[in-house]
């Protein structure tokens, strides 16, 4: 549960880390768009794309295992595409009997499923590489450079700054609940109340967290005002492109 909230940025010195964030953002988006445009079953191109992304990962020094571990995130969604193996019309490959059902895998279906899964896997690696080699403030600079509205970028920046603070608040709430409900740690042996009671407790925690973020935003607003904030967001000029 905690691992998800660690900043994915990996502090390593490499040519990819040193590259300008604007270049990296645009290249990543172009790479993902290219991957999406490749037709189904174009195996040689997939191999080429995998080769490109893996070379980039090795060059970046963040560790191939780190990227592969995070790339697992995309896997559960592949379940959604799995039925294509059986529903796409085409050359029958293999028939399965499940009870009275008979479902047939087709060549076209398997090709389609593997292509979608591969494309998704290649794209997610590119996105992981971007965040692993670019600190978030640099990513904000890149977003401004590609004309994301300034207000949105500033909101993202403030959100990022307080994400870890509020995630800690949430974890404290969870710990407090665990401490008070005698959690046995045994699955299937739930502590405390009925299902709706547990949901209500979680709801109370969510409401509490909402209130805390609201009140913290009040304090931050006052702090901003006292430092001369007048509603106008002023940002530093974009830095020189690194060569």
């Amino acid at each position, binding site marked *: 549960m905690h*691992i*998800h909230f660690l900043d*994915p940025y990996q502090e390593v010195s490499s040519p990819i880390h040193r590259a300008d964030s604007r270049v990296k953002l645009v290249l990543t*988006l172009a790479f*993902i*768009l290219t*991957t*999406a445009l490749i037709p189904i079953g174009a195996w040689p191109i997939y191999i080429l794309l995998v080769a490109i992304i893996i070379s980039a990962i090795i060059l970046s020094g963040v560790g191939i295992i780190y990227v592969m571990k*995070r790339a697992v*995130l*995309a896997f559960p*969604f592949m379940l*959604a*595409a799995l*039925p294509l193996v059986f*529903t796409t019309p085409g050359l029958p490959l293999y028939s399965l009997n499940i009870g009275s059902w008979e479902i047939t895998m087709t060549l076209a279906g398997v090709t389609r499923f593997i292509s*979608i899964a591969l*494309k*998704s896997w290649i*794209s*997610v690696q590119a*996105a*992981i590489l971007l*965040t692993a080699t670019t600190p978030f403030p640099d*990513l904000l600079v890149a977003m401004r450079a590609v004309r994301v*509205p300034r207000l*949105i970028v*500033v*909101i*993202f*920046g*403030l*959100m*990022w*700054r307080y*994400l870890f*603070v*509020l995630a800690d608040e*949430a974890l404290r709430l*969870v710990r407090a609940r665990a401490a008070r409900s005698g959690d046995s740690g045994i*699955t299937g042996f*739930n502590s405390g109340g009925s*299902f709706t009671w*547990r*949901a*209500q*407790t*979680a*709801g*109370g*925690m*969510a409401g*509490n*967290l*909402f*209130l*805390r973020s*609201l009140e913290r*935003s009040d304090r931050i607003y006052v702090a901003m005002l006292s430092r001369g904030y*007048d509603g106008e967001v002023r940002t530093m000029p974009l830095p020189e492109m690194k060569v």
Partner: protein
Amino acid sequence: MLFSPAAMHIPDGFLSVLLSIVLWVISIMIVAYALRRVGKDLGERQVPLMGLLAAGIFAGQMLNFTVIGGTSGHLMGAAIATILMGPWAAILIMTSVVSIQALVFQDGGLLVLGANIFNMAIVGVTVSYMAYRTVIMIAGKKKMGVLVAGFIAAWLSIEITALSVAIQLAISNTSPANLAIPAMAGVHALIGIGEGLITVGALAFLLSARPDLLQLSEAPQVGSKMVWLVGLLIAVSLVIASPLASTNPDGLEWVATQNGFLGSAQEPIYRILPDYLFPGISNQSLATIVAGILGIVIVFGVSIGVAYTRRNRQASGG
């Protein structure tokens, strides 16, 4: 989220390029309008309030409760944000949450981020708003009315968002409609109960701790009737389209072929023509329904965009 069973964040590679771009355009227009609206309502408080609440909703998605065995209920948060902050602010909050999840944590893809913003921030928020307003109108603003309205808004937002995701997958031909739509609808009908109960718990807490917050969001906002109407349109059209699409998947497949065809542009355009004659009447009507939904959404997007530019011109002219 990593442990969430809700398949809401579409990764890259699962939507056709054409559909991704169309949904990007719609999302950008609506978010730009929301940005302007919220800026007007909140003034200089906009940046700290939106940033902090987005971080709060993000952190709130970590809260869970055990349902049975190893499974747990989670919060998406569109309904609670809408009920407490109004639809426009909620669209901004959910957009920030979904964008950071995609950019930093790879929860959802980058090319399909427009689609994920559309599903979770726009469909989720407008549907919650419509459901909440409608139930409040019927059941009244007493505590019971607010709680019932909160539950229905939260449940419906999850269910309709799931239908929207399933239909987009079917249109992109990455998941067969006759399996994806019932599966997504069924699973999320259960997940929606978790969302509903957490939302009710949060509302009950806030009603006793800070009842003024709920009063605040009662104030009518400009454009709220339109949000209500868009929410109703999205909900009704998806509810009508889904069973049709899942019983006659050929129709959606037809759309998918057209779509994939346009997306990859491998063959000459005139090859489309014979395909127009290919489906039977029932399929054609279904294709019309799907095209109609897309049309309605695009028309709303365009009209908001036009209204937005006109307002700008008036402001600078007067």
